[in-house]
C-alpha cells in the first residue's frame, strides 16, 4: 500500500517538476537497481579469459633469472612463454629509452610514473630517457609514437591510451626495427616483443566478490559500486563479480555508478542504508571512493559492512583504524618498473616472455600492516614495489 502511494506521489512530483513520461528507459545501461539473483551475464564476460585469469591467480610466479630468494613480483612472470631477443641485442650500454605514456591524470598513473622514473635511475646503462605524455588523447599518442621514430631510440615503451586506435601506430613502430614493449592496456597486434600486464580485471573483480561470498552470510545484502560503465578493465571486474554473486546466495541490492566522486558515493550509500535498513557487504570496482563509502556507514551510525577496497593509503589506514572486514585487490603500480627491466633484458639479448603476466597480489588482513606507510600521502598506492628503492620516499610524496 505504502509502495503504491509512494509511486503515485512520486509521479505527481515528477509531473510538477516538469518531467514528462518520455524519459529514457532505465534498464538499458545495466544499471537497474532491483536485485536479480540470476543477473544476465555482462556482454564483457568472456568465459575462457575469465577461467584463464582465475587460474593465473594460483599459478606460481617465476623469476626469469631463477632468483626466487626475494619477493620482487615486478621481475617475475606467471606461466611465461619465452621468446628469443638475440636480434635486438646491443651490448655495451649507452641506451636511449623512449616512453610514450597515455597520461598521468590520475593517482594510479602518478604513482606508477614516478616509480618508472626511479627504476630508470637504477640503471646507469640507460644514458637517455625520453618521454612524451599523450594527455589521454589518442591522436597525440599516435603522433608521439611517430616522432620517436626519428629520435634514435634503443627501445620504445608504450602505455597505450586505448587499445584499438593505437594498434596501427604500434605496428608502424615495430616496423622500424626498434624493440617495442607494451604495458598496462594492450594493443591488438603481436608485433611488440613483450606485452606486460598484471593478471587482469576478471581476477581483480573475483578477488573482491569471493571475499564477500566468504564473509557475508548467505542472504546478506551486497551493494556494488562502480565508477562508470563502458571501460573494458572496469567492465571485466564487474563481469567477474557478477558471475560469482550469481551463484552465491548473496543478494545484490544495487549496482550504482559513482563517477569516482566521493560525495556522490556517500549519498548513494546513505540512500541504500535507508532503503535496505542494513547493508552487509560493499563491492567496488576501484577503491578510490572506498573511504567515502565507509564514512557513510559511520555517519549513519550503522554497523560497518565487509568491504572491497584497493591499495590506496587512505583506505588501508581506515581499515586498520576501524578494524574493517576488508580486502584490497590490487592493480599493482609496480608494473611500471617491469617495462624498463624488460627493455634492458631485450637489449642485452636475454629472453623475455611474449606475454609477461605479472602477479597481482591482494592486500589481506594478514598482510595489511606491511602496506601501511604512514609517511605517504593518502592517495598513494601501496603496491608500488618502490619502498626499497634508493630514492624512497621523497619522489612519491
Amino acid at each position, binding site marked *: 500500500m505504502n509502495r503504491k502511494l509512494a509511486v503515485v506521489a512520486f509521479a505527481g512530483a515528477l509531473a510538477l*517538476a516538469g518531467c514528462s513520461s518520455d524519459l529514457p528507459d532505465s534498464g538499458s545501461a545495466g544499471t537497474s537497481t532491483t536485485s536479480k539473483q540470476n543477473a544476465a551475464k555482462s556482454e564483457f564476460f568472456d568465459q575462457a579469459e575469465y577461467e584463464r585469469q582465475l587460474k593465473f591467480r594460483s599459478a606460481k610466479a617465476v623469476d626469469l633469472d631463477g632468483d626466487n630468494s626475494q619477493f620482487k613480483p615486478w621481475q617475475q612472470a606467471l606461466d611465461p612463454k619465452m621468446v628469443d631477443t638475440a636480434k635486438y641485442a646491443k651490448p655495451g650500454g649507452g641506451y636511449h629509452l623512449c616512453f610514450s605514456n597515455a597520461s598521468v591524470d590520475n593517482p594510479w598513473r602518478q604513482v606508477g610514473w614516478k616509480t618508472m622514473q626511479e627504476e630508470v635511475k637504477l640503471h646507469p646503462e640507460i644514458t637517455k630517457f625520453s618521454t612524451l605524455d599523450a594527455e589521454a588523447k589518442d591522436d597525440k599518442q599516435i603522433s608521439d609514437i611517430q616522432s620517436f621514430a626519428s629520435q634514435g631510440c634503443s627501445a620504445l615503451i608504450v602505455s597505450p591510451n586505448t587499445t584499438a586506435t593505437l594498434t596501427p601506430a604500434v605496428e608502424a613502430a615495430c616496423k622500424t626495427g626498434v624493440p617495442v614493449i607494451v604495458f598496462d592496456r594492450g594493443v591488438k597486434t603481436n608485433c611488440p616483443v613483450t606485452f606486460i600486464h598484471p593478471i587482469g580485471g576478471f581476477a581483480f573483480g573475483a578477488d573482491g566478490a569471493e571475499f564477500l561470498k566468504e564473509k557475508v552470510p548467505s542472504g546478506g545484502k551486497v551493494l556494488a559500486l562502480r565508477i562508470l560503465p563502458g571501460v573494458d578493465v572496469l567492465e571485466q571486474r564487474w563481469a567477474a563479480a557478477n558471475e560469482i554473486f550469481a551463484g552465491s546466495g548473496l543478494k545484490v541490492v544495487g549496482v550504482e555508478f559513482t563517477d569516482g566522486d566521493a560525495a556522490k558515493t556517500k549519498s548513494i550509500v546513505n540512500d541504500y542504508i535507508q532503503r535496505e535498513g542494513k547493508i552487509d557487504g560493499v563491492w567496488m570496482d576501484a577503491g578510490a571512493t572506498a573511504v567515502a563509502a565507509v564514512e557513510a556507514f559511520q555517519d549513519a551510525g550503522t554497523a560497518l559492512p565487509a568491504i572491497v577496497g584497493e591499495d590506496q593509503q587512505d583506505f588501508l589506514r581506515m581499515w586498520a583504524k576501524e578494524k574493517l572486514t576488508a580486502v584490497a585487490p590490487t592493480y599493482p603500480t609496480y608494473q611500471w618498473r617491469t617495462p624498463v627491466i624488460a627493455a634492458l633484458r631485450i637489449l642485452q639479448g636475454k629472453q623475455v616472455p611474449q606475454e609477461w603476466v605479472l602477479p597481482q597480489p591482494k592486500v589481506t588482513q594478514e598482510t595489511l600492516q606491511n602496506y601501511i606507510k604512514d609517511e605517504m600521502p593518502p592517495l598513494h598506492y601501496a603496491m608500488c614495489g618502490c619502498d626499497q628503492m634508493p630514492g624512497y620516499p621523497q619522489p612519491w610524496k
Partner: protein
Amino acid sequence: MTRWRPRLADGTAPVLVVLVVLLVALAFAGPAYSEPAGYLALLKRAAPLVILAIGQYFVVVSGGFDLSVGSLVTAEVVIAARLISGDDGNTAWVIALLLGFGVLVGLVNGLITTKLLVPSFIVTLGMLLVLDGAVFLWTGGAPRGALSPSFRVFGRGSVDLPLLGAVPWSVLILLAVLVAAVLFMRSGTGRTLLAVGDNENAVRLAGGRVERLRLLAFVLSGVLAALAAILLAGFAGVSAQVGQGLEFRAITAVVLGGVLLGGGRGSVVAAAAGALSLEALFSLLNLVGVSGALESAVQGVIIIAAVAYAAHGAGLRQRFRPRKAAPSLP
C-alpha cells in the same frame, strides 16, 4: 513600527509545493524519512548545493550567469588538502584563505564583466576552464595532502543543541546563510540588485550603481562557492572531481525555484527551495530504484521545462484570468 508578516515573492509558491510533495513522497519511500533525523541527513547533504544556489541566485537575478562555481569548488578543495596536509593547526588560516580565494575569483569575474563588458556567460566559462586547467596543472590529476579532522567537522560533524539534539554544522551554516540572504534581499541594496536584472537603465537613471551591484553579486557567488567547498570537502573528503557539474546543478536549482534567467524576478527562498527539491528528487529517484544515470536527464528536462513555464506560464495564467491586462509577451 513595521508590521511583519511572512511575505512570499512572486513565484515562490510553486516550488514550495513541489518541495513539500517530494518530502512527503520521501516519507513513503524510505523508512528513514519517517523521523526528523532522515530529513536532517537530507538537509546536511543538500547544504552545499543550497548554498551554491543562493550564490548563483544573486548573479542570475541581476542578469548574469556564474558558470565558474563548479571548478572553483574543485580548486578550493584541492588547495585545502594541499595546504592543510592533515594538520589541525592549519585549519583556521586555510579556511580564511579559501574564503579569500572565493572573493578573489568573484572579483575577477565581476570586474571583467562590468569593466571590460564581456558577457558574464563567457567570463565565467573562461574562468571555469582556467581553474580546471590550473588545478590539473598543479595536481596532475592526483590531489596531494589531506584534510584535518577539525576542517572536516563543518561538513561532517554535528553539534548538540538543547531541545533539537544533534544538528549537523552544515545545516546551521546553511540556515545562517539563508537568513542573511533573505535579509539582504529585503534591504535597499538587495531590491536594487533585483531591479538591475529587470531594467538596468532604469536603475542607472535613478542613480543606482549598476556596476558595483553586479560586482557584489559575483563576489557573493564566489564566497558562497568557497563555503560550499568547505562543506563538501568536509562531507566527502578530497577528490579532484568534487565540483564536476555543480554549476549546472546550481543553475537548475535556481531555475527550478522559478527565478527568471536574465534576471529581475525570483526570490532567494525559492532558489534555496529549488536546490533542496533537486536533492530531494535525486534521493527519491534513488530510493525508488531509478538509475542514477538518469540524474542529468532529469536535470536537463527540469531546466527546459522550468524556463518554458517561466516564459509562457505567466501569459497562460493571465489568459485564464477575467479580462484586464492582455498577455504581456514580447
